């Protein structure tokens, strides 16, 4: 449940040799891993060799539906975004809503997101609907918070320009308020992407219907298939990394617009 920045960007002037330094530690660890499992110092069931894990990865990717499920997870995020942005806009643009609904939202936000799982599992079951609800909920919070902040901070002089030009409500909304809130909205989407990925992983443990990486790992754990578990960890890391980079790209593209 961490919000992590992306990998460090190496400067242009960093000599190539320095960049390789980052690989030393992982390489050593992999060597130790292989050594330990091949030589039998550690039981092969507890630490399968790299080859076994890779083999398993291949089987799962080819025969399993992992790729499909990850795509599904991303689609589920959209539900959270679709709900979160309008709510955040409403809260930011309407002082009334801000006063009356805002505090309740802030209070509900305090409840750790996983604490909602038992309730959601009763209301929605443990299948697709429940997953969507939970992931949407996880994405909802950062999107609303950031959209809210963005919508609240429309620059005063620009608002006056809108008045001078006698823009009606709708025009003010789409020409002024939404564009000025866009950078914050993007930050919210970025955080929402990350949080909903974490929620996806979590949801898999509790709502076990349907394939997914969490299910993979649970199965691995139950049958003591360490290779499955390790594979799951690696996959999680990889996909998480990919998503973080994607989110970072979203942010830079939004800020580029703002800077120009």
């Amino acid at each position: 449940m961490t919000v992590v920045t992306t990998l460090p960007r190496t400067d242009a002037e960093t000599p190539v040799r320095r960049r390789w330094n980052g690989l030393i530690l992982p390489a050593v660890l992999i060597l130790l891993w292989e050594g330990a499992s091949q030589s039998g110092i550690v039981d092969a069931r507890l630490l399968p060799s790299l080859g076994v894990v890779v083999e398993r990865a291949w089987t799962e990717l080819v025969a399993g539906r992992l790729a499909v499920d990850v795509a599904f997870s991303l689609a589920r995020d959209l539900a959270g975004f679709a709900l979160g942005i309008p709510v955040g806009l409403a809260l930011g643009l309407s002082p009334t809503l801000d006063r009356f609904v805002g505090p309740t939202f802030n209070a509900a936000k305090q409840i750790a997101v996983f604490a909602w799982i038992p309730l959601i599992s009763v209301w929605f079951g443990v299948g697709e609907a429940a997953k969507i609800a939970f992931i949407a909920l996880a994405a909802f919070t950062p999107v609303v918070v950031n959209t809210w902040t963005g919508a609240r901070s429309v620059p005063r002089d620009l608002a006056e320009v809108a008045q001078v030009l006698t823009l009606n409500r709708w025009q003010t909304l789409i020409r002024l308020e939404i564009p000025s809130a866009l950078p914050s909205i993007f930050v919210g989407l970025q955080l929402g992407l990350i949080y909903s990925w974490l929620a996806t992983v979590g949801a898999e443990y509790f709502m076990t219907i349907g394939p997914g990486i969490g299910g993979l790992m649970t199965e691995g754990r139950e049958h003591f298939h360490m290779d499955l578990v390790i594979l799951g960890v690696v996959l999680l890391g990889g996909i998480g990394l990919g998503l973080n980079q994607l989110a970072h790209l979203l942010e830079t593209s939004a800020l580029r617009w703002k800077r120009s």
Partner: protein
Amino acid sequence: MTNLELDRVAFEAAVADQPDRRFGAQAGGRLAGGLRTIAAALIFPAALLLVWLVASLFDLVPAQILPDPRLVLATFQEFLETGELAFHAEISLLRVLQGFALGASAGLVLGIAMGLSRRMRELVEPLFLVIAQVPSLGWIPLVMLLVGIDEALKVIIIAKAAMIPVTINTGKGIGNVPRNYREVGEVLTFGHWLTLTRIVLPASVPTVFTGIRYGLTNAWLALVAVELLASSEGLGYLMVWGRQLFQLDLVIMAMIAVGLIGFILDWSLGRIERRLQRWEAAGA
């Protein structure tokens, strides 16, 4: 600003509307305004509560899906009286504080090492970030196979959750200490130790503290998740138990407890942070 800081800014703006302190005649006006704000804030939840009550009274929703709010209140009172709520809350709190202490100290050490030594950062940071990408929950099956489902599992996962933000922010905070500050140390012929303790560490405190705050929030989140999965006492366990018995009043009560404790934890750190910032601003 980084994503972390923007999120923090949004959090502050949305939650902490601190009224300025005023004295004398203005204080009365402030007080009335404050009360009005609280009253306004309570209208919406009161309305929700009313809808809930009506729905229960007229059996619009089955009791297993939405318990009577009066039942939730009664359960709450009962658990308070028997001390069971305190028992479970204490266990959860203890776990989170243990894990947090472990993770934060490890994070501080690692962060300081990475912030001070470029070599260290090159060696360790890529691997660290890759490990950090795997969500805390993702480690549970692995750690479970290694250490079982006892306290060790919970403390390890919570420690991991706390360590990541602390390390990142500490590294960043130390790295961002301005060159001029270090030069002052050189002018005053400080050795390594003095430079570290008198200049670098104090200057990095704001960023480090943000990391600590995030660490505690993450630790609490991780605790809830771990307790839901693999525990026989604690607030998470209460929720699972209530869920399995279809006693949603238990679940809702535990949820509120989780929210309250999470809020108190973050609020206390926020107070400390504000005090630190006042020192920072005064000294600047």
